[in-house]
């Protein structure tokens, strides 16, 4: 027989469990529903943002997207920009993280803070500063400017993600490799790098996603001829709001998902995360 108190505590456990499930499902719906709605809207035949769900479906907004050179150029620029920014930011950010995690000197915390600081500076400020800085060093090419800006805003993420994967990594692992005859650089390649892979890849993914949909910094650094997709989108929405925006959003989401899945396939991201760092 169970005591009344035990029964009450079981009931409380169940209630808490139910509440947790409701919250979880609610959060997922809250996160996904707007995207689902915009996917539906992108196939809507109507000229305006009408009641949901749409009555007739068509591909006219996707045709509109393909017919609009501003969007296509924007997409091309965005992908190119995100790739370059991700590459540089991952290489620089991870290297910084490796050095920082080894560092024992004073001021290490300050340097780490510097690397993470773009996260806390308003993007508008970053955008304007880079614009001024680029002009000061005679860089007027908008793409170069955009790359500079996107490296600045993505680097906190690549540094942070790699640092996180190095936390708790025992120094004895590198020392074991060295004692077995590996010069320090070899120990790094054979031991540190493979074990930090999860963090490096996660950082790269975040950097790509962040760069791909960045608006504020790009707004300052792009010009009329070199636009990113989000900038083209904003401009188009201002000029004539129609459901092409929904179609572009859908393409956006699709590209992002594609990148994540692709990287996952290429690197076995899932197995690495699933097995944990030290398996």
């Amino acid at each position: 027989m169970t005591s009344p108190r035990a029964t009450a505590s079981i009931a409380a456990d169940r209630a808490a469990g139910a509440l947790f499930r409701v919250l979880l499902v609610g959060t997922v719906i809250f996160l996904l529903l707007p995207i689902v709605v915009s996917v539906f809207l992108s196939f809507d035949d109507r000229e305006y943002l009408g009641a949901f769900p749409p009555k007739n479906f068509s591909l006219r907004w996707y045709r509109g997207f393909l017919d609009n050179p501003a969007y296509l150029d924007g997409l091309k620029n965005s992908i190119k920009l995100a790739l370059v920014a991700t590459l540089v930011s991952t290489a620089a950010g991870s290297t910084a993280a490796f050095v920082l995690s080894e560092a024992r000197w004073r001021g290490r915390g300050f340097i780490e803070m510097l690397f993470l600081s773009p996260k806390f500076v308003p993007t508008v400020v970053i955008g304007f500063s880079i614009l001024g800085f680029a002009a000061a060093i005679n860089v007027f090419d908008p793409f170069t400017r955009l790359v500079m800006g996107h490296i600045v805003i993505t680097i906190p993420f690549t540094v942070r993600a790699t640092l996180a994967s190095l936390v708790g990594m025992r120094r004895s692992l590198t020392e074991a490799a060295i004692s077995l005859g590996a010069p320090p650089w070899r120990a790094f390649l054979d031991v540190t790098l493979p074990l930090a892979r999860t963090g490096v890849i996660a950082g790269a993914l975040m950097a790509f996603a962040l760069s791909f949909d960045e608006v504020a910094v790009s707004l300052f650094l792009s010009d009329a001829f070199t636009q990113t997709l989000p900038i083209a989108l904003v401009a188009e929405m201002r000029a004539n709001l129609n459901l092409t925006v929904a179609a572009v959003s859908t393409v956006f989401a699709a590209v992002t998902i594609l990148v994540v899945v692709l990287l996952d396939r290429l690197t076995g991201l899932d197995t690495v995360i699933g097995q944990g760092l030290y398996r």
Partner: protein
Amino acid sequence: MATAGLELQNVVKRFGAVAAVDGASLTVATGEIVALLGPSGCGKTTTLRLVAGFETPDAGSIAIAGADVARQPAFRRGIGLVFQDYALFPHKTVAQNIDYGMRLRGIAADARAERRAELLRLTRLEGLDDRRPAALSGGQQQRVALARALAISPKLLLLDEPLSNLDAKLREALRIELREILSTVGATTLIVTHDQSEAIGLADRIAVMNRGRIEQVGDARQVYEQPATRFVAEFMGHSIWFSGRLGEDRTTFVTDDDLLFRLEASKTAGTRLGLCIRPEHVHMPPREGDANRVSAVVDRVDFLGAELIVACRLDSGRVVRIPIRSDDSSVPTPGDRVALGIAPARCRLVADNPDLPADSHHTN
């Protein structure tokens, strides 16, 4: 003279103002197993890291098989190092872990496989080639770490607290096994440990380290029975220490709390000497030949299975803990006045460490 497997001469390593190793000298013969034993903070881990090449000495020399290595980078020293946490590469299999050092030396695949099979047999790890370290027990991980270190046929093997990460029951069995593997291999070995039973069980000789210096080197019996310093006496097993003055004739010793002990004529020199008595040499009641008698009152009696520990309060108020066998017919009870007997041969004069407080009453 044959070259030593490992030779440290007056090695000094300072961290800021603190000398972690303060003039340590030690010679390990080729093929010999020596344990560097001491409490945490005594400098033994720093010594190991100096030998391995992870730290550079501020002074002194370190020679492995006759070659000075003090300025040689760690990866060129060819030392097999078994880390306290084993440090197995978590992303590599057992076979890949063992192969790593051989690969770096450019050993061909078939020669590697042969050596690996030999080591897996030696460490009784056959069939575990493709396991990841996480899928192994603590004892197996330790043996993989040992096999990996031995794979490079090291000139010197270093073991850092080899048994400390294992649970108490396993430790005894693995100690015997480890000892067997080490004697099969016959490599010059330095074991760093804070655990005297580990040192006694694994090593041919023990070097007791304290405050960055090596205070005594000898086999387990020598170090236990003829401690060179008060620190060694108190660190190895239990001891009862009396500070006091040695008589002119060098056969009597008057303690600071006015107890008189007769000694056998002693050659021990030095100005600051103390008296060290092992508790198991104290008889209760005294036996024939126990020329030294001390009166005490029983404070408490603790039952520990095979033996009882009788806490006796001397007239000075100091409590000493004396073991007696639990089958002794006359077990005293608290409050009893008892006589303690010690043979003069069992009263050993030992140099006091100037850095240990003179009035401290270490009885355990």
